[in-house]
């Protein structure tokens, strides 16, 4: 292609078309970079529940013998139970397929509604399709308040 003759034929300046193309391509590149960059940098931020140091608190006075108090911590359903005066905390997600188990005070067991797994009051599996225990959750007790952090 002959640039000089091309420039004479054309009524606009020789660099106009090339400049337009460059700007259009550059603009699309910047727009795409933004469309990818914005969600990705947002994804890398700390999620709210983590930056707030999400903590769960249970006043021990509310926890009667043989009962459970449920709460949420970092997206997990947590059961705090009291058996024989002892306090324990478990992640309620069944280790089988992740359904949330239920506490049955009468039999002192956790029962899973999904496929019938049964766990004892120390989280050990006693029946059903699992042989893994409920995950026990560490906690601190201070001034008669149980805290999970």
């Amino acid at each position, binding site marked *: 292609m002959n640039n000089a003759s091309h420039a004479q034929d054309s009524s606009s300046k020789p660099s106009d078309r090339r400049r337009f193309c460059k700007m259009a391509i550059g603009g699309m590149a910047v727009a795409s970079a933004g469309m990818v960059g914005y969600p990705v940098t947002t994804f890398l931020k700390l*999620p709210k529940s983590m930056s707030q140091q999400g903590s769960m608190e249970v006043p021990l006075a509310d926890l009667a013998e043989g009962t459970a108090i449920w709460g949420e911590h970092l997206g997990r359903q947590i059961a705090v139970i009291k058996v024989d005066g002892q306090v324990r905390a478990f992640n309620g997600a069944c280790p089988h397929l992740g359904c949330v188990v239920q506490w049955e005070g009468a039999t002192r067991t956790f029962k899973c509604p999904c496929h019938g797994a049964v766990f004892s009051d120390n989280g050990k599996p006693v029946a059903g399709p699992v042989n893994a225990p409920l995950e026990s959750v560490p906690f601190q007790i201070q001034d008669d308040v149980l805290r999970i952090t």
Partner: protein
Amino acid sequence: MRVLRSIYQGLDDRYQLTPLIEKNVTRKWVPRTLGWSACFGGLALLVFLIQVFTGILLLIYYKPDPGRAWDSVTFIKSNVPMGWLIQRVHVVGANVMIALVLMHMARIAYFKIYRSPRELHWVSGVVLLSLTVFLAFTGYLLPWTNLSYWGASVGTEIPGAIPFVGEHVVTWARRGPGISGETLGFFFAMHIWVLPAGLVIFMAMHFAMIRRTGISRPL
């Protein structure tokens, strides 16, 4: 802009980049008659790169443990900012990638491009398709939902039809008699390392072969 240009100029002076770029990208001519169906292979590669990228992002939060896998995916979808988007892109990308590989193959078959000297392009392509399908299959178990559980149960049952060794293949793939935490660990390792690495190796061979024979010229 000026800074970038002088950085490029400095590198170009030392390593002669411009002829390399011209030969492989800006002045690399392809047959004029190719048409849009010739894009499917390259698009499959692009989607694979997106899968690698979004997959690495998901790995920041995903936990390959039966007690926590579902929680961690739910956490990604509902608590991580833009997590729903990254997770959706990875799921949709998996399906799109399989579709693109199949469309790419259909073109090769339709135009009979697989004929000599390109037979091994086809063979390596079949390996690439299998690896892609296995990637999607292993990934499907990772969120540890009821659907993933049954998907993996039914899928790992298939090799049971092989005479004599079938049962062994099934228990091998499941790491035991049924789908369990062991299966999850195995599928996870396959999904994030073994299969992607296999794909990269076979893609490298696939591309090297295509470079040697050149792009096929439609009549």
